[in-house]
């Protein structure tokens, strides 16, 4: 034993010189190479302990400046660190000496019973025990660090109840519960109800074994995370327990799911889309065609792959397509304008293709061509163009003024009629609706507005109305306006196309006819009252003369006939002079 400790340095805290000398003697007797330092007060001892490390410390409890003995012991033990502290007491303090054992001292000795062997033994044992204790404590600290500072969340659970016994910092960070909260919880509190039964069964079947389970946990904030738990039984503070390692795989699962969706999306776009996707080389040889080939080209995928794509293209378009594809050697992506491909035996369809050079991509190794059938668009476009051409021709050919009013933007377009019919120079023609409104005769304006409003709000789209429209020289012309209102799907007015026909001449004719009618009425009245008066008289007189041969005053009656006839003649002459001579009218025309 002595050989193991070649040199011992011991601090003796002892104010009583006699006791110190005794201790010195005892120790020197048992151990040759021993070095003693004496401190006579606690203050001195503190100085020594702070400046140097000792193999052991001997502490007399009855120091002059010690005060409370409990405080003294604790301070010294604390200052001594890994060095053992041995307490020396008198008989009177025997009970207290025993109590100091719980304060971290290594041993206590009664001064009265002190002998060299006992003293030496106590010192060596204390040193040895302290050394082992320190090692153990270090190892435990290391182990604790391993658990606490691990980046992976870990739980220690009571084996039977699954109550939390301990959790590490990573677990606290992951789940959001504090250590105190965890220690009042059971691991089942983290489970989600749908998986409860399954996880419970899994755990029970491996009650005392190692197991691994994938499940979902609910965090304190309510978020659900996907975890993989590896759990194995251990003993913890003398209890049967299991330690569980948590692996958060939420992000990984999300990434996997996103990848899966992306693949599904790709499949939906390429395989099931209406667009025809093909991969070919610069010569038109195909290495892939999507199932849309049946719909677009009327050829099954497999059959198409045996053919060359260029054979299907209309001879008038083939060179244009080939040029575009050749262009891919300089440019990565080119849009080929509409061209015709054969579908079935005799049908030609218009398609539009975007080609992308992906020869350098090993997964593709070719030109990707995305094509869609635009036959309907092309047909519609052609019809529209023809209809527009027709409209232009009509607008030019007609002598009417054609108006085209953009309701939304309040823009009015006119054909040449506005110049030819009303005499406006292009520079003085306003382009908004107000300009046109302004030209309508004030007496007609209200009626025109009311009628127009009716068309805007009713189901009918046609408006036919007569009104007067002002010419550049300030005079008015009668027009017959026939307009058609174009509405969108919601029934809102979008555009109004109209034709204004000059009916001034017609109006003049009508006026003339009306004047004639008035004159005719006057003549008719005159005939009825003025002409018939003498005529009726003549008829009455003749009736008398004829039917009553014996009538008196025949001569007088005959005179009356004559005078009445003269009167009638005068009236007819007057009428004739009022009426227009037919020949006169012909000359005037």
């Amino acid at each position, binding site marked *: 034993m002595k050989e193991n400790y070649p040199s011992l340095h011991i601090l003796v805290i002892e104010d009583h010189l006699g006791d110190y000398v005794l201790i010195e003697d005892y120790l020197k007797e048992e151990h040759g190479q021993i070095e003693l330092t004496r401190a006579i007060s606690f203050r001195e001892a503190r100085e020594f302990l702070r400046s140097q490390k000792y193999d052991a410390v001997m502490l007399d409890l009855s120091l002059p400046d010690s005060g409370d003995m409990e405080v003294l012991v604790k301070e010294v033990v604390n200052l001594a660190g890994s060095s053992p502290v041995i307490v020396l007491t008198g008989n009177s303090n025997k009970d207290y000496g025993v109590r100091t054992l719980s304060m971290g001292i290594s041993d206590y000795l009664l001064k009265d019973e002190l002998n060299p062997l006992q003293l030496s033994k106590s010192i060596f044992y204390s040193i040895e025990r302290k050394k082992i204790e320190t090692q153990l404590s270090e190892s435990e600290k290391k182990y604790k660090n391993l658990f606490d500072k691990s980046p992976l969340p870990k739980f220690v659970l009571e084996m039977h109840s699954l109550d939390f016994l301990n959790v590490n910092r990573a677990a606290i960070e992951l789940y959001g519960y504090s250590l105190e909260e965890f220690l009042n919880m059971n691991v089942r509190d983290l489970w989600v109800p749908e998986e409860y039964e399954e996880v419970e069964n899994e755990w029970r079947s491996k009650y005392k074994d190692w197991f691994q389970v994938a499940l979902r946990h609910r965090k304190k904030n309510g978020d659900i995370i996907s975890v993989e738990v590896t759990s194995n039984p251990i003993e913890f503070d003398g209890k049967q327990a299991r330690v569980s390692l948590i692996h958060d795989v939420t992000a990984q699962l999300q990434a996997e799911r996103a990848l899966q969706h992306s693949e599904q999306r790709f499949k939906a776009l390429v395989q099931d889309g209406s667009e025809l996707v093909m991969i070919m080389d610069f010569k038109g040889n195909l290495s892939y065609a999507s199932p849309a080939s049946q719909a677009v080209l009327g050829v099954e995928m497999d059959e198409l792959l045996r053919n060359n794509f260029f054979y299907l293209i209309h001879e008038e378009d083939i060179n244009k397509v080939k040029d575009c594809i050749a262009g891919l050697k300089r440019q990565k992506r080119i849009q080929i304008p509409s061209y015709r491909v054969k579908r079935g035996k005799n049908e030609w369809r218009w398609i539009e293709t975007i080609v992308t050079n992906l020869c350098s991509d090993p997964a593709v190794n070719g030109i990707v061509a995305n094509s869609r059938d635009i036959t309907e668009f092309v047909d519609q476009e052609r019809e529209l163009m023809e209809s527009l051409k027709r409209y232009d021709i009509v607008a030019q050919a007609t002598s009417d003024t054609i108006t085209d009013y953009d309701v939304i933007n309040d823009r009015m377009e006119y054909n040449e009629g506005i110049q030819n019919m009303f005499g406006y120079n292009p520079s003085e023609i306003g382009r908004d609706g107000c300009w046109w409104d302004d030209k309508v005769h004030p007496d007609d304006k209200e009626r025109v507005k009311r009628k127009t409003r009716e068309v805007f709000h009713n189901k009918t789209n046609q408006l036919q109305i007569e009104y007067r429209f002002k010419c550049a020289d300030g005079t008015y012309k009668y027009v017959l306006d026939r307009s058609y209102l174009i509405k969108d799907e919601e029934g809102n007015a979008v555009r109004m196309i109209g034709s204004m026909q000059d009916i001034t001449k017609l109006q003049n004719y009508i006026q003339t006819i009306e004047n004639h009618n008035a004159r005719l009425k006057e003549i008719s009245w005159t005939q*009825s*009252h003025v002409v*018939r*008066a003498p005529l*009726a*008289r003549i*008829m009455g*007189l003749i*009736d008398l003369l004829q039917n009553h041969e014996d*009538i008196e005053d025949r001569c007088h009656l005959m005179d009356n006939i004559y005078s009445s006839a003269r009167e009638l003649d005068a009236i007819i002459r007057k009428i004739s002079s009022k009426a227009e001579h037919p020949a006169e009218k012909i000359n005037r025309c």
Partner: protein
Amino acid sequence: MLKILIIDDDEIVLLVERKILQRCGFDQEIFTFKSSEAALKFLKEEGEDQKFLIMLDINMPLMNGWQFLNKMEELGRNDNIFVIMVTSSIDRYDKEIAANYKSVIGFIEKPITTENCLQIKGLTQVAEFFKVL
């Protein structure tokens, strides 16, 4: 006893009508008036129970036939006065106006004929005065 009045601004008409009526056996007393005013004055002076048949022209100066009818109907003797409109007008409109007057029982276009006279005699309102005894 019925009295017959002929109102017309044309003397020849007055002459012709009087002669025709007489010839056709209208043996009642016949009074002729060149103006409506004179006829109206005459009516006012006659007894209220006296019954009259009036041959009335429409187109007359100062007071035309319609104006005369309005004044006459104001007298309140419509049950005793019967009017035949006699006009040179062949205007349908005049006939329509005549229908609005209660006292108007006939409409004749000039010239008045023997046939017209016989028709007048047959009108229910005045027939009793022409019964052959």
